[in-house]
Structures are given as C-alpha cells and as structure tokens.
C-alpha cells in the first residue's frame, strides 16, 4: 500500500467501539489522511461514545461534540470562526452517522452545502441507529431487520440515496468509499481535503453488532457490498462528472445477504426482487457515468 501518511496515528487504541466496528476502521484511515490540522465536528452517533467518556479521548485532534441534527450548521460556524481568525490551513470535518446525516441532520447538511460551506462532511454508514440499539433509519436497506422493523415488519422501503441527494446540490465533490478499499478511501479523503467548498464522503462502515455478523466478517462483508453492486464506489465532481472507481465482479446479492443475521428472514423470492433492484440502480449509475452495462 503506497500511502504517504500510513505511519501517522491520530486515533488511539483503547476506544470503546465494538469488536469488528467498521466505523473505527473508517476513522483511523480518514485521520491518517486528514492529518493533525483538523477540527472534527461530531454530532451524536456511535462515535460520540467510541471516542471515550470525559476526561478521556481516543482522538488526538480537537473535537467538538454537538447535538444530533447540527453537523452541517456547527461546522459552518467553526469554519466561519477560523476564517475570521485567519486560519485557512485547518480542515473542518464533520463525522456523522447515517441517522445524523440521512435523517435528523439532513436539513442542516442541505442548508450548509447549498451555501457551499468550506468543509468535509463524512457520513460513516452502518445502516441503522446502532448507538441506541439498532433502530431503522432512512439508510436501512430494503429487507433489513432492526428492532423497529422486526418480524414480518422488516423494512420494505428502499435505502435513501444520500449521495444523489448531495449531488443534486451541485457540490464540488461527493464520493462513496468503503472500509474494505482503504487505498480508494484514502485517495478520496485526500482529494476531499484538497478541494474547496462543500465535500461529502459516504463511507460504508459495517456493524457486526447490528447486522448480526461475526466480528471477523466485518471487512469481508464490506468488500462484498462493493462486489455485488450493492454499494458501488464512485465519485461525482461538481454534481455532473461521474467516475465509477471499481468495476465489480458482480457476485449475486444473495451471497451478501445470506451471511447476515439481519436478512435471515428473507425468502428466495425476496432476494430475487432485491437482485432486480440492485441491477436497476447499477444500470442507472452506469448511464450517469456514461458507461454501458
């Protein structure tokens, strides 16, 4: 792995994440790339806890913990203050979960990126409210069990396509990334750091606790999300220029679903239907990128 900053470690051991937590892997690689001149805005999410209780912290950068729905707004204020103090060097980064991004924080995020506020917004996506104990969010995928979509009431609605919502704001840079593709992730964080204006990264971060998978499967399942086209890796510049970064081997989604307890209730027919949905989304993405299926 040719990565200039891999020796740099701005996240300490001793954090309180669950074994196999994808969000900690995402944080570690992101910080290696972002470097010390970073201020992090951390709205309520798993990482509010993972960072450790007062007076401890597993992060070696300044962090402002803030209310659930305020990531975009708080970061706007931090950036404004740094600009007034003449500090253009420090990067302001929001680090939020899917609930704080797709749901309760969406307004503040949309408002901030419409103003093209100069910060990076990183959403680590574990596809439900995991910190409160696995409740469905608008990021929870079709078919998933959560504690609020249980039994026969499993989620029968699509996951919100957050990147496309951000792309619709015509921001300078929006991209997906995945903990199982660290070179790609690091490159995108670096690209985001070097871009001005509103930048958005959507990082797939598996959750063994909430997905009912063994901790050691965390990275493998993350990789399969890309290889099945469930979570394509791509980036969009200025809301227009699409680039697909990984051309997957197109495993069947069935293989991804079968490994996870949260999808255990799905029938073969359900899985066929989901395969159709994934194919349809992939073809739409290819068209946007000007490529053929």
């Amino acid at each position, binding site marked *: 792995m040719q990565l200039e900053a891999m020796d740099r470690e701005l996240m300490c051991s001793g954090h309180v994440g669950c074994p196999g937590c994808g969000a900690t892997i995402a944080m570690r690689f992101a910080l290696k790339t972002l470097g010390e001149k970073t201020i992090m805005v951390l709205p309520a999410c798993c990482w509010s806890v993972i960072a450790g209780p007062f007076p401890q*912290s597993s992060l070696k950068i300044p962090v*402002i913990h803030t209310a659930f729905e305020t990531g975009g707004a708080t970061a706007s204020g931090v950036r404004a203050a740094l600009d007034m103090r003449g500090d253009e060097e420090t990067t302001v980064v929001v680090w939020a979960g899917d609930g704080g991004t797709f749901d309760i924080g969406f307004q503040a995020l949309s408002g901030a990126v419409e103003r093209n506020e100069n910060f990076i917004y990183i959403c680590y996506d574990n596809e439900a409210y995991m910190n409160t104990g696995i409740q469905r969010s608008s990021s929870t995928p079709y078919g998933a069990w959560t504690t609020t979509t249980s039994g026969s009431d499993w989620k029968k609605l699509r996951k919100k396509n957050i990147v496309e919502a951000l792309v619709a704001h015509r921001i300078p840079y929006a991209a997906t990334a995945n903990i199982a593709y660290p070179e790609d992730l690091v490159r995108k964080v670096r690209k985001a750091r070097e871009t001005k204006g509103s930048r958005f990264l959507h990082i797939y971060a598996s959750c063994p606790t909430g997905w009912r998978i063994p901790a050691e499967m965390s990275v493998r399942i993350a990789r399969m999300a890309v290889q099945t086209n469930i979570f394509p890796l791509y980036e969009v510049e200025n809301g227009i220029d699409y680039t697909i970064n990984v051309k997957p081997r197109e495993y069947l989604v069935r293989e991804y679903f079968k490994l996870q307890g949260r999808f255990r209730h799905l029938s073969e027919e359900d899985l066929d239907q989901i395969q159709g949905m994934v194919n349809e989304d992939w073809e739409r993405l290819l068209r946007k990128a000007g490529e053929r299926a």
Partner: protein
Amino acid sequence: MKKVLEGSQAVAEAVRLAKVQVISAYPITPQTHIVEILSDYVATGRMNAKYLRVESEHSCMAALIGAQSAGVRTFTATCSQGLALMHELLHWAAGARLPIVMGEVNRALAPGWNIWCDQTDSLAQRDTGWMQLYCEDSQEVLDATILAYRLAERVNLPTMVVLDAFYLSHTYEPVDVPEQEEVDRFLPPYKPAFTLDPGHPYSLSPLVTPNAYMEMRHDIALAMEDALAIFDEVEGEFARIMGRRYGAVEEIDTDDADVIFVTSGAVTSTVRLVLEELRSRGEKVGALKIKLFRPFPTEAVRRALSKGRKAVVVDRNYSFGASGIFAQEVRAALCNAPGHPPVFGYIAGLGGRDITTQMLSHIYFEVKESEAPLRESVWVGRQEVNRAT
C-alpha cells in the same frame, strides 16, 4: 452621539460596536430589522464579520456554538417560534459555557399566529442557563447589548437581551450611541477560556458519566450565583465610561409605598406615568422594575418589596396551570422572608394587546382595596366570550 433609532437599530449598533465576528440569523418578524441592518453592515464593510445565512433558527444556534467554540465573539437575534426551535441548543450553549449573546424580541407563540408582544417566549427558556436582561427603552436595549458581552464573557454563560415586539423593536426614540473608543475601553477583545485549536487538541462537550456530570452542573449553578455580583461590577465599569447604569432591579418611589407594582420591559414606562398621576393624588404607590431575570436578584426583590404592604405583579406572559411567570418568581423569592407582603398577580397585554394607564390605575385601586389576593392571577382587559367546549 444622539441618534433617533428604532429598538432594532439600537441592538444592531451595539453589535457593531461590540465588534462581533460571526453573526448567524434566520428571518422572523419582528426581529428581522436587526439582522437586516447587520447584514448590510457586513456587506458594506462597516463590520468585519462573517454573516451566516442559515436555513433555520436551530442551525443558527448550532453555528454560533461552533463559532464561539472556535474562539470568536458571536451574535444572533430571534423571537417566538424561532426561539422555541432553538430550545435544545439554548441548553447546549449554556452547558458548553459559551458566552453567546442574543437579541430576543418578545413575540407571542402560535397558535393563533400572532406577531405581537408577549413575554412567554423568552420566559419559557428560563431553565436553559441563559442570563436574561429585560429592557425598558431603546437606550437600555443598546446599553444592555454592549454590557451583555462583558457580562457573558466574565461569567462564561450565554446572555439574552430581551426587548418588547414593536413597542421597542419598531419604535423610534433618541438614543445616545457611544463612540467606538468608549466601547473598546469597556469591552476588551474576546479572550476565550478554551477553544478548538489543532495545536492544543481538546474534546469539547464529550460523553460525561454520572461521575462528573453533577459537578459540571454545579459549576454552572455557581457561575450563575457569581453573575449577580459580576453584573453589578460590570454595570459600574459601564457607568464610569458611559455615565449610565440601571441596576439588576430599579426601585421607583418604593420607600413610603403601600402598593408596589412589579414590572419588566416597556410596560415599566407606562407604570411610571401612572405613578406620577397617582402620586399627585396622594396615593402611596411605587414600582419595582426587574431587569435581570436570570440570575434572579432574589435579595434585591425581597429588600424592595418588604418596604410595601402589598406587591402587584403585572405579567405580559402566562404559564398555563400556574400563573404569570414573574409573579411565580416573586412569590418564590418572598416565601422564606418572614412577614412578607401578599403578592397579587395580574395578566395583561398578551399577544400585543395594549396595557393602558387606565388599566394600571384600575389594578392599583383593586389591590389597594383588597386585603389579600382572591386568585393567583387576574386577567385584565379581557373581553367576555363563550368558553370553548
């Protein structure tokens, strides 16, 4: 220099003179003049500040929490629904010990939609940890806003400067606007107690277990207690430079009074007129204006009201199921003082209805002729209507 200003302009002038560095606001009537003027000051270079045109009041307060945490002086103005929407983050700003200053224009809460004067919006935030200053006229609005920065930054708690919708926000009065040099002598550049700095990485507002939370809250309680004395100190500094001081409370003709009105905000001016008229007829009546509502000046209120035989609180607000909110606070302040006077509570002027001199005279004679209050609250100036069933 004397200028004829709206209350809103008085706020904006004070914010300019305080050299605020980040302003964030969302439009809501009747606060908008304040932030329109500030937007113009920033656009034309009269202020060296960033103006964040956020998409809601909630985001507005979040942005100020971010900016103040990163070490700059901040301001916003709002009212009514906007303040209610900020509620969560009002707690946050105080808990995070950030000296944010806000202009709060007292406006009624919906429904029904009503843009006129009513204090329930700001009083409903009394438990958030913000200091609150209620102003009587535009001069006091300007002075209180400048003073609020010094006070907030000494105490490390946020401060709300409260002014009546329209009666103050949209009324032109002569106001003495201090020179920049005078304000600079009173208000030094902001030196944050802590700040977000990559050179010294701290985590602000992290997870706090039961092992530490209570001590943090107690620290805020102590800061609020200290704020009473600091308010006096800061007012003294202000008076030495500007020649004006107001007091946490102001006693008007209380020394020989039998009945003492308790007021806040612009209605105090109306009470002053009524006092002149009644005094000329030999009535022994006085008034106690409460400017500082948080922290509540309990001792000063006790001292003033114990001079009279009866206290009567005029509340332009109401707490359903209880009473007027100033009346509650006054009763609470008096209840442990032996031999304290009875407290009569009157509710008047909700949703922008005028509180007239006739109304206040009527209240005075009713109280004079009653031995004790028959009810916790008497609503005055109310029309008879069939009750909703």
